[in-house]
């Protein structure tokens, strides 16, 4: 095959093949999430097992599609590398694509094999699809590298940074889910406490959830009543189910979709304005990109809202977010240090407050603040979660804003 054909094949593998595989995998995983909680989704009688089976099948399909997607993604990267005769980590498209790959692989390995919670992978796959789709906005054809980039230092520094950014993206997903779920739990608990004064149900999500870590047990704890003392076990089951359904409906209703959409739009705008401000883009294209990024995230937020009742308790999500961000922070620290070492070799100084260096330092400070907030009484929990969200916004600004808007030594990483 000629170089051009290889390049074309590589492009096809990226879009639509990988994108579609990731998207479908996310859908299957998300469906399987709805079957992990509660009993009312399953038909009565012998159908119960069958329904459990659907969830398992969906989970299995989700994993299979995710692995197929990763395979396609890796093949895309390899082909692109062969066409360019270099590691495909030289411009924004390649960074974004590799970031999505890192995030998806990290999510799959961590959730599927370490945490054994594959159903949560749906959100990571969704984020991976979004990040990968956003790479379309900065697509560039394969090309050679500037000689200053042609060194193993680039592989070292850029790989570390990109992998960490991918892991931090997964951490952002968990943080956002945690905040959503926590808000819903709090509001529902507050509403129930208001009705049943003196009840302790409001405390359920805080520290009382040691025994098991799935949402059905939260439902039981938060809504333990509703049983008829004289009822049969079947009656109890039904009462439990009704309570669980009511609790889940309440959880979803606790978050206003309009407010969520509005705040997601505004929050995303703190970063995505750079597309409008990019000097090399026409205003129309810039606005189009701005809107597609914002609306994509709003859609993702609304989907996540729909799944709030099926999420594990807030504390579990918080723990997941912490684990992921801690690993990403370590990688980021290492990557920044590697970058400083490379800068000493290449630019003759290890740190010069170039916009990108400043941005990566800012990201580091923001995530350090998150980790410190996690260790501070009074700030752990929601405050830390918000810091985590802002830290990700800072990371994205460092990534897009500094490349597209601000001219610095790292500018060659931008669009071609």
């Amino acid at each position, binding site marked *: 095959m000629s170089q051009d054909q290889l390049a074309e094949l590589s492009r096809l593998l990226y879009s639509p093949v990988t994108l579609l595989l990731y998207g479908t995998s996310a859908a299957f995983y998300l469906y399987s999430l709805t079957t992990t909680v509660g009993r009312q989704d399953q038909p009565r009688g012998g159908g119960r097992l069958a329904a459990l089976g659907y969830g398992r099948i969906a989970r299995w399909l989700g994993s299979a599609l995710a692995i197929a997607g990763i395979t396609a993604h890796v093949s895309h990267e390899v082909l692109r590398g062969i066409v360019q005769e270099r590691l495909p980590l030289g411009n924004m498209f390649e960074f974004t694509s590799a970031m999505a790959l890192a995030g998806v692989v990290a999510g799959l390995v961590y959730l599927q094999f370490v945490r054994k919670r594959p159903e949560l992978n749906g959100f990571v796959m969704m984020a991976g699809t979004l990040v990968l789709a956003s790479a379309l906005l900065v697509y560039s054809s394969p090309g050679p590298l500037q000689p200053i980039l042609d060194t193993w230092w680039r592989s070292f520094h850029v790989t570390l940074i990109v992998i960490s950014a991918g892991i931090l993206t997964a951490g952002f997903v968990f943080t956002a889910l945690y905040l959503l779920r926590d808000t819903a739990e709090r509001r529902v608990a507050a509403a129930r406490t208001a009705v049943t004064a003196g009840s302790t149900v409001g405390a359920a999500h805080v520290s009382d959830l040691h025994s098991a870590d799935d949402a059905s047990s939260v439902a039981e704890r938060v809504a333990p009543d509703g049983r008829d003392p004289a009822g049969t076990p079947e009656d109890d089951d039904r009462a439990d189910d009704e309570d669980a359904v009511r609790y889940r409906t309440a959880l979803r209703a606790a978050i206003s979709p309009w407010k969520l959409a509005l705040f997601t739009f505004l929050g995303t705008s703190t970063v995505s304005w750079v597309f409008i401000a990019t000097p090399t883009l026409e205003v129309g294209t810039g606005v189009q990109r701005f809107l597609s990024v914002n609306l994509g995230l709003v859609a993702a937020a609304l989907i996540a809202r729909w799944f709030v009742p099926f999420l594990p308790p807030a504390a579990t999500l*918080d723990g997941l977010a912490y684990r992921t961000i801690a690993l990403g922070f370590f990688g980021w*620290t290492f990557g920044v240090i590697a970058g400083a070492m490379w800068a000493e070799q290449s630019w003759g100084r290890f740190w010069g407050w170039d916009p990108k260096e400043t941005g990566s330092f*800012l990201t580091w400070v923001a995530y350090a603040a998150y980790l410190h907030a996690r260790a501070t009484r009074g700030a752990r929990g929601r405050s830390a979660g918000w810091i985590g969200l802002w830290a990700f916004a800072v990371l994205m600004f460092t990534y897009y804003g500094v490349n597209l808007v601000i001219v610095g030594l790292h500018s060659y990483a931008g669009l071609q």
Partner: protein
Amino acid sequence: MSRTDGPRTDGPRTDDPAGGTLESEAPPEMNPAVGPRPSPRGPQEPIRFVWDSVVMGWRWLVRMRTALYLLGVLAIETLIATVVPQAPNVATTVDAWLAGTEGPGATVSAVLDTFGLFDVYGSTLFLATLFLLYLSLTACMIPRVRAWVRLVRRSVPPRSRYPDRAEVAVAFATAAEPDEVHTAAQRLLRDRRWRVREELRDGAGPPQVAAEKGLWSREGGSLLFHLSFYVLLGAVVFGQLSGFTGQVGVVEGEPGFSDTISQYWTRDPGRLWDEGDHAAWTLALDGFEVDWVRDPLAPGAGQPTTFASDVTVTSADGEVTDARIEGNAPVTFEGMKVTQLDWGYAPLFQIEVDGEVVWEDFAIARASGDGIPHFRTAAKAPSAEPDVGLDVFLFPFAPDGEDGPQLTGAPWAEAPLAVVRSYRGDLQLGRTQQSIWQLDTSALEPGGDTSLRPGDEITFDDGVTVRFVELRRWVGFQVSNRPQLPWLLLASAMLLGGLWPALYAYRRRLWVAATRDGTTGRTLVTVGGRAFQRPQAFEEEHDRLVRDLAGATGGQLLASAPPPRVTAATAPSHHPPTAPDPGARP
């Protein structure tokens, strides 16, 4: 809380002045009125006041919340520095902002300038933030390091009165004697580098093996991580004081430059750097290789592909070294690191006024992106009367077309063309601040302009003859000496080496108690434990330990009694340890 100033009325008060609600069920006589509180000491003396303020400030600094606020302030300052151009990096952009030609306008820029936001990293605010952060770090480190040292030196794993009630507890039965089980457990735990309590018995209690692990690594890692910032600070200050950085441009084939203080174009010596520290070698540029993707249709068209200098260095005692300096491969000569930073063209001009040569030198031309990409420089001949100045725009690839030269903007010098404008008058050298690339034309009269190819010459009407002799290239080198680099490396190693255990190590305790069961004649072994962090990881470790201990003593895991309790173990790891943890930050 409520505060009562006057005589108390009976019954609960709802209009509490402090805004709280005091709903006391107790009879009024149980809540006697509280008069104005007597002051614990007399009027405060000034020294007392100062001391109290210091103590209060110190307590404020020690708080983690303060550190968080300071990190937030640091983040905001850094964010400003990302968005606003910084004078030490891009002075020209800052000037453009101040002039209002770029950025948000002159008024906003003037406000930014008032707050020193064009040089955030040199501003007092930034230094004050850093100072407070370090102070906060120190305030927090001192008690932590002391507590940690005490912990590591004195800690003996504590016994548990009820190991079977620990957060993770599993029991198994074996035929081995209790003493054998205890010895086996001690050996097993010591092999896995647990800290094991020496004596099995403590007073009247039954014998028990108590062990602890991860005692110092998590907190120690965190301390190492935080202490690395002192090394970092020390290294940076040390480098500022005793390092040297200088820039110089060298033209191909010319004698080059020697490493002495006077020959650098710009230099930034540390306070403790003196002239004798220069190695005094001479560097000549034998050749400079640069090439690009020349095919305009190829991917990455116009990008450079090679960028390397071949240099000859002659040391002070006559030793000659040939070396090749590339973008990512600087070369160090006698402690001075030479980095290739920049390059450009160096046209050699000869300027003659009335038959007298007033200038013959290479003009150092730099790439400029205004309009068609070109290289720009200026020649300044103050020895003529009046002064002669040349403004030069060099187009490296301007082949002749049908209607004169085609300015392509390509950087390869296949058909160089210099567009020259001559000026006479006052160059104002030494009176106004001007760059070596540009003329200050405010006191100059334009004499005429023309375009020259290498070898051409022209005589303008005012008697100035300009000869474009030849075109060469120059390379900008940075020569630096950074004695702080090993220390920076040490700081990085401490940072990373500390960060990993600080995030992933976990402290846990384990108790093994074996008792003879009189009825069955077997030995019942209870293995209980608790983790302060990462309960899930501990649960797996605990499982392995129990299995190995059962294997070593021929035991059988009990299926039913006592049931393994895994209550708190599945809780997310971020929950604070419930036992006092002397290492934790307050």
